[in-house]
């Protein structure tokens, strides 16, 4: 992303404005302003959307996090009280713990499986049909995927428990027990996202030039060795971007939880976004909910920064 951006920033300026021929002072000023009038016209609708629904809410969200606000009446400024309250809020720490556990399970399995699928797509199964089939769950709404698995994993008559029972093992209350709720939700979303993630990694694999592999094979490198010393290092920039995007998405899990467990049993699957939702719309505590989302925002920014920095997502080993 970085390279394309910098490359293309120079050339758009170089060309337009052909008809400007005269060289009076007034023309010079016009040239500095360029196509400003026209640009204002073209960008106007997007600007409205940007200011009203991105910029102002961002500022207002930060402001609200320093207030006490229950929708009725006006927000009252209370300084950092929301943030200090968070330190002693057991439910907040529980939500963070649950979310981190979810992200760990979700991203861990998803990335490994997707990498395997991407390698298979790259080396063996080259048909668009197979890629399309693997992408299918990603195109269906979270809510639908959640309900489908809620049925298939039903304790009494779900097909998965039927199979488990048939194998002579005890049935599992996937959504109904505290220890299984989060792993189950993580697994459901691994199922939904693995094909999509695999396609992203597959695109990365395709960008590795063939001659690198040819050299490795001439040197007699084994497939395992080739994978670890060539494929993985060269895939790194794409892998880092995929990790940044999927980890950020994973932290914001909500839909699946909302339609299956609703955060339960007890507090076992109350992820951070669920907690924010309940605080804001269940308890009308918009100030505290805003403070929670500021923290979530900071965590996401930090996660992205750390990943880019330590995994060196900006650099390619190809050069």
């Amino acid at each position, binding site marked *: 992303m970085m390279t394309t951006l910098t490359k293309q920033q120079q050339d758009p300026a170089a060309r337009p404005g052909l008809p400007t021929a005269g060289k009076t002072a007034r023309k010079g000023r016009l040239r500095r302003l360029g196509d400003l009038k026209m640009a204002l016209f073209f960008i106007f609708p997007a600007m409205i959307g940007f200011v009203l629904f991105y910029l102002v809410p961002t500022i207002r969200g930060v402001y609200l996090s320093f207030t006490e606000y229950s929708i009725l009446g006006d927000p009252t400024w209370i300084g950092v009280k929301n943030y200090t309250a968070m330190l002693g809020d057991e439910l907040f720490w529980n939500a963070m713990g649950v979310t981190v556990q979810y992200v760990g399970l979700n991203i861990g399995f998803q990335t490994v499986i997707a990498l395997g699928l991407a390698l298979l797509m790259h080396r063996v199964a080259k048909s668009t049909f197979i890629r399309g089939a693997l992408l299918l769950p990603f195109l269906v709404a979270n809510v639908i995927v959640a309900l489908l698995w809620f049925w298939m994993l039903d304790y009494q008559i779900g097909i998965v428990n039927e199979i488990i029972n048939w194998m002579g093992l005890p049935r599992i209350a996937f959504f109904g027990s505290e220890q299984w709720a989060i792993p189950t939700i993580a697994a459901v979303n691994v199922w939904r996202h693995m094909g999509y993630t695999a*396609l992203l990694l597959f695109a990365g694999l395709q960008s590795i030039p063939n001659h690198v592999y040819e050299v490795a094979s001439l040197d007699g490198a084994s497939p395992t060795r080739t994978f670890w010393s060539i494929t993985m290092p060269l895939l790194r920039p794409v892998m880092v971007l995929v990790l940044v995007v999927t980890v950020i998405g994973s932290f914001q899990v909500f839909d699946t939880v909302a339609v299956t467990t609703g955060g339960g049993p007890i507090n076992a699957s109350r992820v951070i976004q669920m907690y924010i939702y309940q605080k804001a719309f269940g308890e009308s505590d918009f100030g505290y909910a*805003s403070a929670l*989302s500021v923290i979530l925002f900071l965590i996401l920014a930090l996660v992205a920064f750390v990943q880019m920095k330590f995994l060196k997502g900006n650099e390619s080993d190809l050069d």
Partner: protein
Amino acid sequence: MSTSTLTRKSVSNIPVKKKPVNWRRVGAWALVAVAVAVTVAPFLWMLRTALSTNASLASNAGNLLPADFNLGAFKRVLGMQSPEEAIAEGGSGAAINFWLYLRNSVIFASVTTAGQVFFSAMAAYAFSRLRWPGRNAVFGLFLATMMVPPIFTALPNFLMIKNLGLLNTFAGMTLPFLFMTPFAIFFLRQFFLSMSREVEEAAMLDGAKHLRIFFQIVLPNAAAPLATLALLTFIGQWNEYFWPLLVGQDENVRVLTVGLGVFKSQSPQGAPDWTGLMAATLVAALPVLLLFIAFGKKVVNSIGFSGIK
């Protein structure tokens, strides 16, 4: 390109042994088959359940064919059954108003897609074809908002929509998505920059104005990326749950995803209406599945560059 990888492999392997290579491929294909089966089977199970009756589900839990084949669940979801019949078949008896939710989903997804793609294209034109002071700074600012998580802006946006009195209206539901997303502008700008400008420059010399160039040259030439973006946006909006849940609870504007959530929670105590639920999810997923069957290749091939923002 990839075929040469294969020939290279087999050439280097022939002198040693031939069979292990084949076994490897068989193993790899077996893994592919397992992956496809794991992906597709749940959808078949959805169909199998929707074609069953609730009463027979329990006794045929492990049977792969529909238990007591029957279209009752679909009829119930599509409002073609009386409440008494529905209750007799294990439904909740409450009206599901599926057609209303379907209409709302169509309105919500198509209005937001049309607005977002068109206005983003206009902005992308300003960022790629026009020269004005502050352009790169503004573009950078737009891009930066891609980092802001939706939940963060959702709370203040909800308050604003509420203060404007637009809760439970299509205006309130569509406005935040209508004008732009940073991603759509970025996506289209990249395409516009890569397009040849010769025709535009010739038109410019003939005195054509930017508006004409935008509508008659740039938009038609970018038809393919615009269609891809529209398709991806439509699917995303069709599946949107969080925002409609916040501002569109009312029956009149309730979309399918929210309706499905309500339908699930309405399930009568003890034995949920599984067949109805699966019929409803299947019908709700159908438009996206049809779009995917029609334009699947386009979607699959667009993932590589669109996913990594």
